[in-house]
């Protein structure tokens, strides 16, 4: 049979670069493998304790620094993680600047993992990173974010918790 459907790039009426859907186990492994990852956690995390718990667990188990955006810092004050407050639009600005040395002064990041943001907001932030940086970006939130490099699909809050648990297992 002639295969006529393998090349169906939506060339340019709606833009071509869209996120690859990723499963939690794969995401977990990718995070573990990243050389200089940054875990960007937004304020929505505070609306669900279970989610916050998992965010802290990811940061701890993968031993990655947390950029606490919005007022998510409140959730990390007494957690034993390397978290710093930063505005996410400012963060995205610095992430596109090869001269930025990171939150810890040790150099620019190569992988960004995000959780706990408004979908429309983080998708815009990703739009900038997608087009103006070489970062790998992984969304592990409950909405499909087409401007990330990789993203979970649209899932319920319950499934998200399960997915994060699986991700944590694979760290």
């Amino acid at each position, binding site marked *: 049979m002639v295969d006529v459907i393998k090349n169906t790039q939506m*060339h*340019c*009426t*709606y*833009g*071509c*670069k869209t996120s690859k859907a990723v499963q939690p186990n794969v995401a977990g492994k990718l995070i573990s493998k990243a050389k200089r990852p940054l875990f960007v956690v*937004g*304020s929505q995390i505070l609306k669900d304790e279970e989610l916050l718990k998992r965010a802290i667990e990811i940061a701890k188990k993968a031993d990655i620094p947390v950029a606490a*955006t*919005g*007022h998510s*810092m*409140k959730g990390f*004050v007494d957690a034993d993680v390397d978290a*710093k*407050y930063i*505005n*996410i*639009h*400012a963060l*995205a*600005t*610095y992430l*596109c*600047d090869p001269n*930025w*040395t990171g939150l810890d002064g040790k150099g620019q990041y190569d992988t960004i993992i995000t959780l706990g*943001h*408004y*979908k*429309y*907001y983080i998708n*815009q*932030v990703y*739009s*900038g990173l*997608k*087009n*103006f940086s070489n970062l790998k970006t992984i969304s592990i939130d409950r*909405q499909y974010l087409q401007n990330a490099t990789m993203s979970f699909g*649209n899932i*319920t809050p319950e499934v998200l918790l399960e997915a994060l648990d699986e991700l944590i297992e694979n760290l």
Partner: protein
Amino acid sequence: MSELTTGSFSIGDLENVQITINNIVGAIDKQMEKSDEEMGPTPKPGVSSLRDWDHTIFERYNPIYTPMCDQCCYCTFGPCDLSGNKEGACGINLEAHNAREFMLRVMTGAAAHSGHGRHLLHHMIDLYGKDYPLDVGPTNIIAPNVQAVTGIKPETLGDLDIVLNYVEEQLTQLLAAVHAGQEGAAIDFESKAMHGGMIDHVGMEVSDIVQISCLGFPKSDANPPLADIGMGCIDPSKPNLIVIGHNVAAVTDIIDYMEDNDLSDKIELGGLCCTALDMTRYKMDGSAEDQVPKAKIIGSLAKELKMIRSGAPDVIVVDEQCIRADVLPEAQKLMIPVITTNDKVMYGLKDRSNDDVEDILADLTSGKEPGALLLDFEKVGEIAPRLAMMMSEIRKQKGIKALPTEEELKDQVDKCVHCLACEIACPDNLPISEAMKLAKEGDFTKFEWIHDKCIGCGRCEFACPKDIDIVNVIEKSSQKLIRNEIGKVRAGRGPISDPEIREEGVNLVLGTTPGIVAMVGCSNYPDGTKDLFDIAKEMLQRNYIVVVSGCSAMDLGMYKDEDGLTLYEKYPAKFKSGGLINVGSCVSNAHITAAVIKVAAIFAQKQVSGNYEELADYSLNRVGAVGVAWGAYSQKAASIGTGCSRLGIPVILGPHGSKYRRALIAKPYEDQKWNVYDARDGSEMKIPAAPEFLLTTCETIEEMMPMLAKSCIRPSDNNMGRMIKLTHYIELSQKYLGVMPDDWQNYVRMETDLPLAKRQELLKILEEEHGWEIDWKRKKILSGPVMKSDVSAQPTNLKRLCKEA
């Protein structure tokens, strides 16, 4: 000396001399000649005249792009895929295209305001003539933005004609720059966007000055009356006449007709959007007892669909801007005739402007026509109230039913299959599915919770595969809540007066008033309308001056504090520390930038006419003001904000603001960018990294609180001022983020900058964590700060303003 004014004329015994003069001694020349002041370097600046200033700004504040789309579809070479900053067929890359997209939004907003101004001006000149004097209250600078930009000091309606000619020429030039090909540099599209933003404040100023002068609006009134607001304040038992839009011109005829015909008590006149605000300003410049608002405010754009769906309106009159595009079909379903009164919104309706009033009424009451286009305001004035009376009866007789019954509500809710399509479609991804789940069990509290957050856009309904009328479900579930939606809003007071500036200017420049927080913009709040109340309350308690306008001014009045009072009732409407000022509607935003210009003019004696760059430089370095457009949705918000950017006023947008595609964000770690000149000798001086942005977004109001405080820090703060600002910055960070800010020390120049109560503790941190040298005996900082404190320094970004060293 006798001066001829507008009108035909003949000159004494020279009657057979035909004098034909083509704009020789036009208003502008007249103004320029008469003015005592000298003219600044850029009266009526062209597109590139202030480009150097823009480039100075962009040198520190980087245009940051977050594209809405990776492609360009402007011309038929395209669509072009620009992802990864590729070039399209015309050679433009994604960065430049996005700058262009942003510019287009800005000029669209500017056009909306100045188009509105042009319409008002034509109308008022028709009514009152070109010589009608402008009067906006006690001031020597009637139109600060107009004067700063064009060099014109307008005194009459006719003078504003020339101002708008200038505005329209500039907008045409900017629109021309949108054309395919042409500009390749993002930074030059950015400069054009700045031009559009600046022009917008001119257009807004013209609009509001015209209506303040001609319609008896409060004129810098420091104690304007309170008006009712909220869906709950409309009496559904009376005939309801609802107006929607931004241009009050036609509505004044309605109000007059109702007064002349004793209908004011018989009809409930309510408004949505800025027309509503401006209705409450109409005829408010009389004595205190005459200051009774002529209408009620229902709310912002977010309430339009809900208000229509409630079935309450008997007639809807629309004018322009921020009006739902589906008003006609939505109204038609409920037999509500719609009258369109402006060429911006015609809904395909027949133009009945020249038809007989009775014929029109017959066609509308019979349902023969779903509405009418009426460009004759006198006719609108008569038809709208009469129609409301008639339709109220007819609609009652026909038993028009709007919201679902309890039973239908249950049926609707039961249809839900929890596919999440509605949530994905919802601009805020509200948990509709969860609310449906609870509602099935008889618990509608989640829908009540959603009601406040829902912007009433209706996208969920189009997504629902089960055709559930989700907006109706939300509204029906929240009936109890809605009935109690009754608040107070202070009628828009217009400009800040010169005496107020004279009193408060010094506090602002030295920093002893911690700052101005201007809350503007629309109703696209990320987390509901209460956010505004929380922000204002916090900042007012901290003695910031809070200025509001438009949607923000409305929504702020919907909440009451622990004493059961709205903030309007609690805080004075005066321009002073701890004052809460509603300047008015969307176009009144010009008074906010105007106030900043006036601070420079009155407090610092800066020349205003044609001197925009110097004023902007002054503002950036010395006036601790910050704008908040928390619910910004429209292109007008983009242009207002961009006008602030060019004037050096930082603005924070809610998270939806990221969809404007670009921000202006500096990098605090780029040390070399945080220098200015000292105008006394041209030497360079280090300054704090604040404001850290001219336009940015943030996630939550909790995040924003410390950002606001930090954004008010300026190089010109004296020690007392710096101490006050730092106190708020640190306290707000601790309160809302749970931690000290990690950069507070960067703003410290000497020990007296430190909050008194915490000085000891902070000095210790400076010593231990940052290695500063402290003389503990005298509690003095010996070394550490990179900035020096010198209150008589004159910080500027403009070398040309410096005296030779």
